[in-house]
């Protein structure tokens, strides 16, 4: 009985066959494949074609693992053993059907390989995105640099032109030139800011500053702007606000003016309200609430998520100008303070933007500790020799006009390292300060600066060097400092910025 059951239920998993030395099948139990008889082994499946050369009269065992065979419409995954003998006995071929075992292995390998490939693809996508982002930021930085030279010329000469004798109509024209170039400068600054922020290169400073003075100044400017547009301007500053706080005054001003500019831009009738109040004042921290409300066009619900995205403008009104970067910059800057910007809006009725920002606030913060970058030009018993290393004619002319109108300076202009070093080394006329364009067409200003710092005479190699550049990323500034550049004048610059930086650095 048992024998019958064994015969009935045992599933054969091994097949034995005997071959001759030419590869013909002499004998087979056909346990797996019934037609495995009286054929050449090579005709059964292409795998066996490699068997024939191994059929020699030598004692040898060759094992082939995990071979997929499809014979007589039956598919198996098998281990195949070929045993040859040295005593002239015919070779033995054993096929082990291990399909079930290998199927399990296949499932495991499938999961493992897919997971590895997916993680590699994800890593590649990240790298690609980073490269794309870096390319975009480099492109923006370079592009804005190229725009800055001509813009410096426009700003400088518009300023100079406005101080000449003009009739009323000409004054109007100059005013338009002035506001248009100012607008252009603001856009370029915004684009550069976004590229600096998005590349993770922006760090907020913490310096004490007069907060109330800053709020009053902003209020004063925007009251005028609102009234010029026929809008009411309301404001409310909490009496409990501390006068001096520690934070990044420049970036706070940028957040507030961007919000107010945005309100002005989208409000045709009604009012703009600017509220600042104190949430909390603790031992070392002041949490301050800022809120700008307008009665402008408002936002649709579906637009609320996209208004803080770079280059997005939800309003398609062509009369409203801008890059769509103002609110994106606000969002980034507010997030750098570990806070968030909130917006509530009703379409057609207006919007409110608000945020809470933490500042350093301690009684020890005094106004007299506020650092000032402003410095008057030293009273001159002589004129100062300024050396300008610059190959852009527009910038050359701009600097020349500004310094000439002041009357305190002699200006030498050179365009290459040899002339720069020769001029500084001239012992008859000592150079008091070098204005160095960093990106000359044929030379790098920072290389020239390095050479100056190696000059043999102490007073020559110690001459103050001011870099003129649009490249003001964090790593750029570190680099300038490292190679001995004393200060940086960001392009485009105006008259007072140029004179300020000279005054700061003259010995």
């Amino acid at each position, binding site marked *: 009985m048992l024998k019958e059951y064994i015969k009935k239920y045992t599933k054969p998993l091994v097949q034995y066959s005997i071959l001759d030395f030419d590869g013909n099948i002499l004998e087979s139990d056909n346990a797996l494949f019934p037609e495995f008889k009286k054929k050449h082994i090579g005709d059964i499946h292409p795998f066996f074609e490699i068997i024939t050369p191994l059929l020699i009269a030598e004692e040898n065992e060759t094992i082939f693992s995990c071979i997929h065979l499809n014979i007589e419409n039956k598919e198996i995954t098998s281990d195949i053993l070929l045993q040859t003998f040295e005593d002239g006995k015919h070779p033995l071929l054993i096929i082990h059907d291990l399909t079930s075992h290998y199927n399990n292995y*296949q499932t495991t390998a499938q999961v493992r390989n897919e997971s590895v490939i997916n993680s590699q693809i994800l890593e590649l996508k990240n790298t690609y995105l980073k490269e794309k982002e870096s390319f975009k930021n480099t492109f923006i930085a370079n592009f804005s640099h190229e725009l800055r030279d001509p813009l410096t010329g426009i700003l400088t000469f518009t300023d100079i032109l406005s101080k000449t004798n003009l009739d009323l109509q000409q004054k109007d024209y100059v005013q338009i030139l002035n506001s248009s170039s100012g607008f252009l400068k603001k856009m370029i600054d915004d684009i550069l800011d976004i590229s600096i922020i998005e590349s993770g290169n922006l760090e907020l400073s913490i310096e004490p500053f007069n907060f109330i003075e800053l709020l009053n100044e902003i209020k004063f400017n925007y009251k005028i702007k609102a009234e010029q547009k026929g809008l009411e301007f309301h404001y409310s500053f909490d009496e409990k606000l501390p006068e001096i706080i520690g934070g990044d005054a420049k970036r706070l001003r940028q957040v507030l003016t961007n919000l107010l500019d945005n309100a002005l831009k989208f409000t045709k009738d009604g009012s703009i309200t600017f509220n600042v109040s104190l949430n909390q004042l603790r031992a070392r921290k002041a949490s301050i609430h800022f809120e700008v409300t307008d009665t402008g066009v408002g936002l649709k619900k579906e637009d609320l998520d996209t208004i803080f995205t770079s280059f997005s403008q939800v309003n398609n009104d062509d009369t409203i100008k801008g890059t769509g970067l103002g609110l994106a910059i606000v969002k980034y800057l507010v997030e750098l303070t570990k806070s968030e910007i909130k917006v509530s809006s009703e379409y057609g009725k207006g919007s409110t933007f608000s945020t809470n920002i933490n500042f350093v606030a301690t009684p020890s913060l005094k106004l007299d500790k506020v650092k000032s970058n402003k410095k008057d030009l030293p009273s001159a018993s002589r004129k100062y020799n300024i050396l300008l290393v610059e190959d852009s004619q527009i910038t050359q002319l701009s600097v020349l006009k500004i310094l000439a109108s002041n009357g305190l300076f002699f200006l030498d202009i050179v365009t290459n390292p040899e002339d720069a070093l020769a001029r500084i080394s001239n012992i008859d006329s000592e150079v008091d300060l070098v204005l160095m364009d960093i990106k000359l067409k044929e030379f790098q200003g920072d290389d020239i600066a390095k050479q100056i710092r190696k000059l043999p005479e102490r007073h020559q190699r110690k001459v103050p060097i001011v870099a003129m550049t649009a490249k003001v990323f964090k790593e750029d500034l570190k680099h300038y400092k490292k190679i001995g550049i004393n200060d940086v004048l960001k392009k485009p610059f105006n008259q007072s910025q140029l004179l300020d930086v000279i005054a700061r650095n003259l010995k």
Partner: protein
Amino acid sequence: MKVSKKIVLLGHFGVGKSSLIRRFVENTFSEDYKVTIGVHIFKKNITIPEQGTDVSLVIWDLEGNDDITNTRLSYLLGTHAFIYVYDVTRPATYESLESEINFLKEKQKNTSITVVGNKEDLVTKAYLKQNSGNFGSLTDLYVSAKTGDKVDLLFSNLAEALIK
């Protein structure tokens, strides 16, 4: 006259070895990735018109491995030509190209090796040019199992070279 030649495809997993063979043997392609374990063996007869010779290509599709030294050496017995396949979009599949080829050369001194960059349909010509330094000077052909581009050429050139 009919001759039989064994061609072995090797390379990392997921580079498209099975897809290249399926494209050549059956002229089909599937986006679904099914991991090959062990070896699948296919056969295709082609005629080399110039010599008037029929060649039976016995193509061994080996399981992908990120280290060629783990390949079962019994699979390499009697090989006439290797096709080493990598994926032009995945650096992990070609980063050790040179050492993998050297391993093969060491194991089978007189066997030809054709190095193939698959999935060329996913990248631009400019990308291939920019990355040629990474692929090394070893690449013989860029192909696409998906579009079929240069797949027949790969096998027919190889067959022709093998019967010379």
